[in-house]
């Protein structure tokens, strides 16, 4: 009778213990960050791997999302005779929500999974162990530069997503559907607030960057050193990151825009 309760309790305790492990791990990573000031080239390399190589998927997806958003919003707004505010609606949707969230989900799939697989494979092939035996701390040398690069890349990628998405909305709204170009830009300029909208979007993407990269590097470092273990860790990174982004998006949205 009590077995199901016991099993739920056991699973909950395991999750809490794992969260504790992840917290200890990230505290070690954060303590290693000052060292990177002296060896910033390690971060630059990872900024390329994590950030620059994610640009293609971000730009293409953002363009598609912006165009669809422009199209859908235009038909809805036209029913109310308000199609001139298309620029404002597209911009607010992207800057507040879609930019950070969709960029986060894409970032988790592209860069997060790659980080987990790379670190997990380094563990499985004893590269991390060999580093330890060469008196080099893998957390400082391998994990910390990747974590910092992920945290720095994510807000930039989200900003890029929002910007390209707006261009997509412009191409469809102004280029195809005949919305006035001046109204598109001026209403956007007048109604998108830097602090309330843009800055909050940046804060969101920064938080998502921390969460996704934390999950990715922890899962890689904690992966079972087998092919199956690395595969499962990579899958967990994508799934957990997606859930975390959506959950934190709700919390942050409630905190940031709840009073409006």
């Amino acid at each position, binding site marked *: 009778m009590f077995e199901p309760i016991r099993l739920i309790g056991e699973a909950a305790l395991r999750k809490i213990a794992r969260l504790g492990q992840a917290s200890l791990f990230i505290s070690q990573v954060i303590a290693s960050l000052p060292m990177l000031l002296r060896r910033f080239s390690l971060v630059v390399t990872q900024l390329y791997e994590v950030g620059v190589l994610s640009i293609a998927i971000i730009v293409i997806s953002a363009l598609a999302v912006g165009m669809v958003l422009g199209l859908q919003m235009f038909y809805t707004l036209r029913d109310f005779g308000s199609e001139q505010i298309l620029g404002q609606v597209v911009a607010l949707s992207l800057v507040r929500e879609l930019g950070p969230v969709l960029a986060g989900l894409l970032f988790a799939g592209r860069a997060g999974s790659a980080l987990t697989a790379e670190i997990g494979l380094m563990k499985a*092939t*004893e*590269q991390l*162990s*060999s580093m*330890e*035996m*060469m*008196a*080099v*701390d893998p957390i400082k*040398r391998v994990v910390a530069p990747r974590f910092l690069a992920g945290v720095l890349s994510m807000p930039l990628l989200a900003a890029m997503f929002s910007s390209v998405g707006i261009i997509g909305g412009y191409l469809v709204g102004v280029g195809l559907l005949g919305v006035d170009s001046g109204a598109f830009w001026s209403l956007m300029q007048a109604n998108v607030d830097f602090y309330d909208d843009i800055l909050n979007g940046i804060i969101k993407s920064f938080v998502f960057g921390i969460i996704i990269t934390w999950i990715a590097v922890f899962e890689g470092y904690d992966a079972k050193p087998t092919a199956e273990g690395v595969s499962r860790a990579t899958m967990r990174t994508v799934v957990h990151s997606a859930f975390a982004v959506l959950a934190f998006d709700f919390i942050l949205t409630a905190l940031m825009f709840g009073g409006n």
Partner: protein
Amino acid sequence: MSSDIILTIKDLQFKYGERVIADGMDVQIQRGKITTIMGPSGTGKTTLLRMIGGQVRPHAGSISYEGKSIPDLGKNELLQARKSMGLLFQASALFTGLSVFDNVAFPLREHTKLSEQMLSHLVLSKLEAVGLRGAAQLMPAELSGGMARRVALARAFALDPRLMMYDEPFVGQDPITMGVITRLIKLLNDSLGMTSIIVSHDVHEAMTISDYVYMISEGKVIASGTPDELRESDSPWAQQFLRAEPDGPVSFQYPAKDYQSDLFASVE
């Protein structure tokens, strides 16, 4: 006398679940000598090297390296101690994203402030010693198993360690590479004044170059001595191992219930 001993392992205890790796193991490694630790596969020889390197903590007992208790060292002290150790991994463990040159240069770049020119000279001299100077610009994926092992060897002794550990250095090598690695271990040990620990179950190669041999089974040292002493030993463990006999004190079969009852269990 004590300064002749670089490493002392006393009453070491360690288990992986129910599997006993060390059960009161005592080992002493003499400075400047080549000591081989032999034993059947799965007896925990690699784990023993990891305990010496501080990557695995023993459950009880002591490991004293140059007077320092390895299990009691803090993270930074352990990193310092490891600067004077080298470990050749069984799987070579080369960094797949770095070239052969950069793999060997890695520990030098991390721990020294040498100019690139000086670093290049040192790396090329290490690669020359293992016969792979010409492969400096290759990537690990382009190397054969034997070449990867030699690059890993060059990397392991890049910082001129005082204690060099080899994890199954002869496994999976063709006879020529095996001979090359055997000679290299002996040459490096003698010319650089290092102390070497070889973990192996390749009897012939290990006995050829070793000054002293420990044979371990079921977590204990079952025989020890110079290669000549062991050849003449009347220990049944030592003789089974040296003569490669399939059965003896070390059973060929993994512990299991009766064969017939296992076979007919499904019929009944």
